[in-house]
């Protein structure tokens, strides 16, 4: 009986959270047109979320691609079709690993930075100070960070996939000796616009989800050291679960 009551309570709690974050999202969208007038602020945030995540994204992309090259080669060799390595690696990267791994890394690198920055701004009265200076903090601080994240994510995912394909090629062609001509030509013949679109749509949606969770958690963080820490942790955990859940839904939708 107690268990049911607890479950019911936590269900209500999560529904309430979902409602609050939806309202927050609508509020952000309402402020977007005005925020777009100050595009320099958004560019600054694309730099903060995107450019500063480049190294970790590129390194991870390279290693994921190299692992794909090894594993793919091992598997395809059993069927005598090593030339298909290019196709396998590219499909895997562009449709799945690119958007998903980028989103997880983004949540860990840029999302936590956003959440802790906003949380600390609230804890140190910077948000209140802006309100006292008649500057709307949602429009001046939150929306540019939100939009910056949305713009940065697909770009990062594209770079991740690109470097990943290079990594797979490095291992497959240069080390394992797959024929370079068939690696590239099979890839070009079999990977279609539809596959690329799926990757782009996924990374855009993950961008919205991760940025929204980060700015929401940060903006409403309890203004103490503990509260900001918890907001940062929740950003990563929630983003990871939401991204994987959305990934399943989107993959099913694209079938």
């Amino acid at each position, binding site marked *: 009986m107690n268990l049911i009551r607890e479950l019911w309570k936590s269900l209500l709690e999560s529904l309430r959270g979902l409602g609050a974050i939806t309202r927050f999202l609508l509020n952000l969208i309402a402020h977007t047109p005005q925020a777009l007038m100050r595009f320099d602020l958004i560019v600054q945030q694309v730099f903060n979320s995107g450019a500063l995540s480049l190294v970790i994204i590129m390194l991870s992309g390279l290693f994921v691609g190299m692992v794909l090259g090894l594993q793919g080669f091992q598997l395809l060799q059993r069927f005598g079709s090593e030339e298909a390595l290019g196709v396998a690696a590219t499909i895997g990267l562009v449709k799945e690993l690119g958007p998903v791994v980028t989103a997880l890394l983004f949540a860990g690198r840029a999302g936590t930075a956003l959440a802790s920055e906003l949380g600390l701004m609230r804890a140190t009265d910077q948000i209140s*100070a802006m309100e006292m200076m008649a500057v*709307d903090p949602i429009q001046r601080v939150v929306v540019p960070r939100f939009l910056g994240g949305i713009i940065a994510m697909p770009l990062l995912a594209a770079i991740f996939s690109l470097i990943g394909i290079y990594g797979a090629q490095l291992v497959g062609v240069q080390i394992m000796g797959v024929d370079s001509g068939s690696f590239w030509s099979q890839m070009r013949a079999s990977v279609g616009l539809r596959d690329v679109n799926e990757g782009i749509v996924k990374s855009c949606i993950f961008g919205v989800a991760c940025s929204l969770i980060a700015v929401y958690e940060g903006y409403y963080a309890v203004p103490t050291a503990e509260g900001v820490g918890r907001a940062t942790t929740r950003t990563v955990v929630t983003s990871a679960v939401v991204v994987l859940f959305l990934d399943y839904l989107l993959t099913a939708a694209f079938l």
Partner: protein
Amino acid sequence: MNQTTSIVEIRNLGYAVSSRAVFAGLDMDISRGRVTAIMGPSGTGKTTLLRLITGQAVADSGSIQVAGTDMRTVRRADLYVLRRRMGMLFQNGALLTDLSVFENVAFPLREHTDLPERIIRQLVLTKLQAVGLRGAAPLMPGELSGGMTRRVALARAIVMDPDILIYDEPFVGLDPISMGVILRLIRRLNDALGLTSIVVSHNVQEITTVADTVFLLSGGKVVARGTPQELQSYPSDVVRQFVGGLPDGPVPFHYPAQDYFSELLAPGEDH
């Protein structure tokens, strides 16, 4: 606009936080052009009163008029118009940590005006000069001491030439020199710029040297008002306890608790 001498009029103010009454029937008039101090023991809601005056919180009952605007019914857009005429100095300065000292002071100008860069530069440097920190313009907030941070925040608060300047505990954690600097700035800015200054503080000695009028809050009400001299000899136990810094009196030393001995002798249970 209301042309009476009061710029802030509070009548019968009621405000509660989670069913605990912070204010019950508070009345207060703050005169235009003067330095008004709001004092009181910790936890009497001095900062809360500032939040109500600046519209960061909304009162439950009574009325608050600031420069002729009713703060209980004001619309957000009008509130923002009113706030351009208010400057506020937060306890810790609340400088934007990603901007330099210069950009922090320039922030309100850049957000609210289309002034050319040359004019912004002049305005910012004049205000920084007024607080003695023109040389610190290129520094980042992290490189400043506590006193300097508050002076930069003060320059930022006056950069839009406000009518009202509000100080929330401006002396907390400052060394005597910085405290003296802030005290002198409060008086000088008030007189030179024709401001109305509201200072919330519990530093009795310091504040009485600059304030024209002092309000002493306790138990959600104004228990005393007058000039600093009048307060020294005010016929009230609360005032005597506060001004004299006595540890026990009408404001009790002990937080409310059950009987001491029965709690000590009670069989151990987890709190």
